[in-house]
């Protein structure tokens, strides 16, 4: 497997050869920032297009097919439209908080986005408590949503924000616990290390068998809820609260919420791929050397994107199939079923790891 750190190290030595180190690091940070923003935008556009097409096929429709070949330029057109729209200032809103809220959501989304290991040696934020950091910053998004609802000074957004607060905080527990099971299996909180182990010993979902599969399923449900997507889209529940917490937003401020929603879906998929499905590690079957060699030639980031988009497809499939839950059902699902289940699962995983029952 190609190690991307060779390139980054070469680039770093190249820069430090002609300039002081602080400047080199500064330039590198700038490049990384550009890379993140660009990737973020491209992924958002790809995801929105994918969602439109996939949901169209579920719904016996064609989806966008007028702007560009197969409607490929539709999303670009929509983004342009969104950018030109006026950002409405409402008289009774708390302007500062109201304008800040989308940036909170976006910042949380950006920071979690930076935690993802894209390829071997290609991770932006990678340190020994990566998982911890990931869970911590993903919590910032809730603040943004609560602020949006509160500062709008309107009843629908307020109900949406309250729902969202209850929902996101609850489901973060399950996410944390499923990640804990993985940490127990791999013995590390560093994302690159978790993936490296999977490349060496097999994917977590195979290696940890029963508890890992259970954790994966719980993660899918909780992750779906974390993304505010159907059947857990209560905070914006279109048919109940018109648009929930972002009812009073317009133009690009609404666009930020929209972007963050889609990227959070991708981050959810990417995290599932990283901690359960082996990240950038290719498929290996012991004993089938020819096959394994061919798989090894496929670059790691293609493996990673393939797996992430597979999970994203699962999330879309679920969204376009199920009706929405009610708030009390949503909370009882988490507190009465998922939470106890993931606690038992941790014990199960502990037993599996202690007695060396991993595959």
């Amino acid at each position, binding site marked *: 497997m190609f190690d991307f750190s060779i390139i980054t190290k070469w680039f770093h030595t190249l820069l430090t050869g002609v300039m002081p180190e602080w400047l080199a690091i500064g330039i590198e940070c700038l490049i990384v920032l550009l890379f993140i923003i660009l990737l973020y935008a491209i992924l958002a556009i790809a995801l929105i297009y994918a969602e439109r097409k996939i*949901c169209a096929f*579920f*719904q*016996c*429709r064609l989806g966008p097919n007028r702007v560009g070949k197969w409607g490929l330029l539709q999303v670009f057109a929509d983004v342009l439209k969104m950018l030109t729209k006026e950002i409405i200032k409402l008289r009774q809103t708390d302007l500062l908080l109201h304008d800040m809220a989308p940036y909170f959501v976006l910042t949380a989304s950006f920071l979690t986005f930076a935690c993802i290991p894209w390829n071997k040696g290609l991770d932006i934020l990678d340190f020994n408590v990566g998982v911890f950091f990931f869970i911590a910053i993903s919590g910032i998004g809730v603040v943004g949503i609560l602020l949006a609802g509160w500062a709008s000074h309107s*009843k*629908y957004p307020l*109900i949406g924000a309250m*729902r969202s607060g209850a929902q996101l905080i609850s489901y973060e527990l399950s996410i944390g616990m499923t990640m804990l099971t993985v940490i127990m299996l791999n013995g590390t909180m560093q994302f690159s290390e978790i993936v490296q182990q999977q490349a060496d010993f097999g994917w977590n979902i195979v290696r940890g068998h029963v508890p890992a599969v259970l954790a994966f399923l719980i993660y899918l449900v909780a992750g779906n809820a974390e993304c505010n997507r*159907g*059947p857990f*889209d*209560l905070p914006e*529940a*279109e*048919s*109940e*609260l*018109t648009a929930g917490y972002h009812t009073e937003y317009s133009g690009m401020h609404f666009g930020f919420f929209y972007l963050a929603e889609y990227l959070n879906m991708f981050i959810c998929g990417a995290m599932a791929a990283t901690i359960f499905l082996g990240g950038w590690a290719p498929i290996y079957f012991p004993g089938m050397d020819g096959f394994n060699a061919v798989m090894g030639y496929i670059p790691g980031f293609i493996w990673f994107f393939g797996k992430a988009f597979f999970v994203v497809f699962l999330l879309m499939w679920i969204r*376009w*199939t*199920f*009706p*929405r*839950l*009610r*708030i*009390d*059902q949503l909370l009882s699902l988490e507190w009465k079923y998922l939470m106890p289940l993931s606690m038992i699962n941790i014990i199960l995983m502990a037993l599996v790891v202690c007695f060396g029952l991993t595959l």
Partner: protein
Amino acid sequence: MTLDIRTVASSELHNEMMRLKQERHMDFLVNLIGMDWGEEGGLGVIYMLESSKTGETAEIKTSTMDREHPYLQTVSDIWQIANIYEREVYDFYGIIFLNHPDMRRLFLREDWQGFPFRKDDKPEEENPLRMDNEPLADTTKEYFINADGSVGVKENVIFAPDDYVINIGPQHPSTHGVLHMRTRLDGETVTKIDPVLGYIHRGVEKISESLTYPQTLALTDRLDYLSAMQNRHALCMCIEKAIGLEITPRVQYIRTIMDELQRVASHLLYYGALVMDVGALTAFFYTFREREMLLKIFEDNFGGRLIMNYNTIGGVMYDIRPDFAKQVKEFEKALRKRFHEYQDIYSTNIIALNRMVGVGTLSQEQAISFGCAGPTGRACGWHNDVRKRHPYALYDQVEFKEIIREEGDSNARHLNRMDEMLESLNIIDQLIDNIPEGDFQTKRKPIVKLPEGSFYQAVESSRGEFGVFIESKGDKSPYRLHYRSNGLPLIAAMDTACRGEKIADLIAIGGTMDFVIPDIDR
């Protein structure tokens, strides 16, 4: 049918009504119709009652000669639906019902001057186009008689100042039109609903008083647009029976089949709207796919997709096309084949069941007291199908089941509608192959004049009993034309059904009630 209306003195009204309810079990208030009989007859009300047990009917009228301060006794303590019906009569005729807890206008603005349905009222003069916002009072008036015989007024509170009231509608994705429900919340729990109606009130009944009978037909399709066929059928039938016009068997067949096709179309749309309301967006397209086939049949045969204008007095507008039977059979085959998809994706889904089972329950007594006929009433175990109770057209010659469930919750209402679709297909099955040859239009005089008297005709529309009441003085146009709306009882029952449920349930219950706003506002 011609009505034989018994007059009761206004002072005796409440006792007489109580007696009818208790002794003769008249628990279904079908209609409560305000009337203005002019200087000689005064202002009054016609009550149409029916017993849900024995099926016998009674028509009562009462009146007061005082046009300045017309007072009548309320019956809102006997039938719950009378509460909203009496508000309608107050709105249109200015009749004040004593002891009625909530004497507000129902459809018109609260600052409206005059009472437009009175024959001597001139609404244009006193009501210029107002540019200010419509006031919505949080309090209401109750009129009662003091011990000395004078009339007293007291103020009742609808919403207290510190209640958390949220406006659901008039612009809202899930109210299926411009319905406005002021909803009091305790957290997420609904504690009270106050419907504010009349955003698309067009005064169809008032307009009809100045139209000739054939002209009134055009407006029926615009009431409950998902029951356009049945509504117009009811009015045509009422007029035909009043003037004694015979209808050819071919027309009877066509009308029955069209009524049932319309019912299927309506229930398909109901399913789509309900699943949208509870957030299952994909299932919505499934029924619209089949509904499109049906609308194509309508369009091919008479050009309309939503507003049909098909029935006429004495027949139908055009003959059906030669391939009508083939088209209908193709549609039927497609629907039966795909019906399981609707059930698989929504009706048997665990989340959907959790959202509907045991939610928004109406007891049988409540359903009858509110007059929630149709699939909603039948979900509470109330046998109220007009096609069985008062058969019309060909319904006494075909075999079909009346779909009854006992639970009274959202799920029962939903399943009732799903089953009714199949039952409608069964009815069509029995008729489609034997449509007799003949004329599609009976010859009649160009000017239609109804004999003097009162006439009523009910049909089973897609969402319950749709009734047409005509009072004629022997002229070319009706003296009073009243439509029994199906939506109004459903809206009235929303408060009872939704109390203690969550906001999300309010939306889902509204979806399963399946009201159509133009039908409510008229």
